[in-house]
């Protein structure tokens, strides 16, 4: 509708005054040219026809208090005059912005709700200048911000909100392990033993690479320990890891077995077992972390491991027959496993 049409149908529009109501209920009248500088008020007048009289005053948004309103109207009063030069406007703006920070924030908020973009830009610029170059303490002081971040949060790099749960678990486990290691310092024997075991694993791996040179008896002993450790290690990692490890073992086992001839069949198979255990991440070799795992979970994992072992075991009798028929000399490889013989001792 053109203004003239509106004037004909609603003569009140042409009145020089507009009525505004602030959130506290007070009503005031403002010159039309000044008030219409605010897009919000403009919209209210044109689309809803309010503001023409005291009874249908325009309700201003919550954030526009009377004090702030008068500031905004001052701004509008100056800027709605078309003839002013850029220099004049700039110098007015500069003077206008001299107020305390609290009022500045309130003004920004109110100008935003009235959709007065030039004023929002002006106040944003001023607030940015207030913040720029200041230390966090100063900024907190100016805006009354609560200092509610922990020291760690302040120092840590910001974390991505989509953190991998497995990484979180790993972090927890590492933290606990660190604690455990400290306690272990008191129990020296155990520590020595662990180191011994570690060397064993390396030896086993080397012997696998170099051929079957290692003393089988030693291997057996180490294997006992390793079996237990391995079991515990499996329980510790996430079920995914466990599944992949066991798959790994199975594949390794199956891959290696057909390739060996009888003499070394069993021993190499056993070595593949060893090798598997050395594939487990080093950090978990200590096997002490499992104590922290929830006992219910531990039981569940135990059961899963046993089930899986049984599946593998069922293959074994036939396989062993095959290998035995092919082979010449066989070394007896006694193994104890977690209740079920993974690889049986062969006579």
């Amino acid at each position, binding site marked *: 509708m053109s203004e003239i049409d509106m004037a004909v149908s609603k003569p009140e529009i042409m009145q020089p005054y507009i009525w505004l109501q602030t959130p506290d209920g007070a009503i005031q009248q403002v010159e039309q040219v000044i008030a219409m500088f605010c897009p919000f008020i403009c919209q209210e007048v044109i689309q809803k026809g309010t503001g023409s009289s005291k009874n249908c005053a325009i309700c201003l948004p919550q954030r526009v208090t009377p004090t702030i309103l008068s500031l905004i109207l001052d701004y509008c009063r100056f800027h709605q005059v078309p003839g002013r030069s850029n220099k004049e406007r700039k110098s007015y703006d500069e003077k206008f912005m001299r107020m305390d*920070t*609290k009022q500045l*924030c309130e003004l*920004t*908020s109110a100008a*935003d709700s009235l959709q007065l973009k030039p004023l*929002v*830009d002006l106040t*944003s*610029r001023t*607030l*940015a200048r207030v*913040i*720029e*170059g200041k230390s*966090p303490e100063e*900024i*907190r002081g100016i*805006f*009354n*911000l*609560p*200092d*509610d*971040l922990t020291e760690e*949060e*302040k120092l840590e*790099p*910001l974390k*991505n*909100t989509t953190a991998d749960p497995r990484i979180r678990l790993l972090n927890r486990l590492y933290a606990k392990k660190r604690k455990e290691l400290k306690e272990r310092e008191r129990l020296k024997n155990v520590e020595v033993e662990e180191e011994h075991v570690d060397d064993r694993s390396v030896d086993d791996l080397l012997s696998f690479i170099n051929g079957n040179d290692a003393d089988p008896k030693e291997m057996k002993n180490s294997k006992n320990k390793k079996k237990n450790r391995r079991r515990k290690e499996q329980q510790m990692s996430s079920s995914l890891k466990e599944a992949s490890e066991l798959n790994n073992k199975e594949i390794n086992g199956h891959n290696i077995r057909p390739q060996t001839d009888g003499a070394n069949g069993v021993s190499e198979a056993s070595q593949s077992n060893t090798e598997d255990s050395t594939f487990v991440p080093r950090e978990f070799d200590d096997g002490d972390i499992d104590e922290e795992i929830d006992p219910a979970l531990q039981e569940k994992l135990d059961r899963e491991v046993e089930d899986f072992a049984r599946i593998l075991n069922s293959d074994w009798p036939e396989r062993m027959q095959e290998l035995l028929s092919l082979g010449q000399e066989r070394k007896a490889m006694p193994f104890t496993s977690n209740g079920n013989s993974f690889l049986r001792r062969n006579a």
Partner: protein
Amino acid sequence: MGDALGSDLISDLPQSIVESILVRLPIRDAVKTSILSSKWRYKWASITQLVFDEKCVDSCSDRDVVEKSVVKFITRLLFLHQGPIHKFQITISYLQSCPEIDQWILFLSRNDIKELVLELGEGEFFRIPSCLFNCKKLSRLELFRCELDPPLSFKGFLCLRSLNLHQVLISPDAIEGLISNCPLLESLSLSYFDSLALSIRAPNLKYLYLEGEFRDICLDDTPLLVEISVAMYMTDDIAEHFEQSASCNFLKFLGGVPNLERLVGHIYFTKYLSIGNDPGCLPIIYKNLEIIELNQVSFEDMKEILVVLRLITSSPNLKELQISGSSNIPSATDAPDLDFWEKECSSKCRLSHLRVVQLTDMCGVPHEMELIKFLLASSPVLETMSIIPCVYVVESQLKMLTELVKFRRASAKAEIVFVRE
């Protein structure tokens, strides 16, 4: 958890205002707001404008160290950023081409980038990865010292309004294709190209800025051009090429821009326009041309003077004229063809809106004086004419002044300001 003195003033403002404030801070300060309080931890991470300049990391004497820390800073920041990025600007002279920049551009291409400004250091030119051409919403592109190679299947940036290529390696076909495939292109700036022959087809183009050695420019389809600024350098072989060309450069360049409002030429631009056949009385009138600025006009070349004259007489609404001369110290005081002025400039010619004239580097050669005479006689509303003589011709200044005083002035208000150092 505010203190007893007052409640939190700022954390609950709407995100649009917070963004408006953070965007006006240097990027470092914006990121530092993350340790102000728990509410502020991630407010910075969704700002849509990222501008990186020399100051975004601490400076140090070792250039490599600073470069590495800038790369790390930008990469980390992009990782932590959430949401669309509309503007991404890097203006860092010590940042050389490196593989991380490819990754940044890939990231931006997936985040609705609209304005991209890349101004790297003086080393090897950065080769723009092809993912840039997938940025469908790109509206402003500014590249400095890069290599640009649009893929064959590239159909153009449909939203591109502003293109600025400064020292960019790109084949002439690719540039022409790029320009003509961006239908909304309004502003085009090409600087420091070598011997470029270009035909510009851009139906919405309003602002054209060219600087460099151009062998040939043809404005084929630019009816909406409003502002043209050209600084044309010339090498010897380009000059040779020009001698042989018969087409009229003036019409090729200015023949299709009826809406022109402002024309600025530097160095050899006027010479470029003068090459080719004389267009005679121009078929086109520049109704809106209000400001003409032609620098380094050689007043000893008749053809160049003719170009100036044709422009002036075809612009009925001309308001401001600036001309600077480039004549060497004159060897002879009389020049041929002085009567051409009487032939070409009829007394009917009136520059009825010309108010301000500025003539710089004037040596007092006869043709310069004739031009001044012509302008004074044809400008009824002239207010100021400033004449700044060339610093090398101290002796002729008095002679110039004596002649000036004799000229008839059509405008009673005209003030002649003769600036002597």
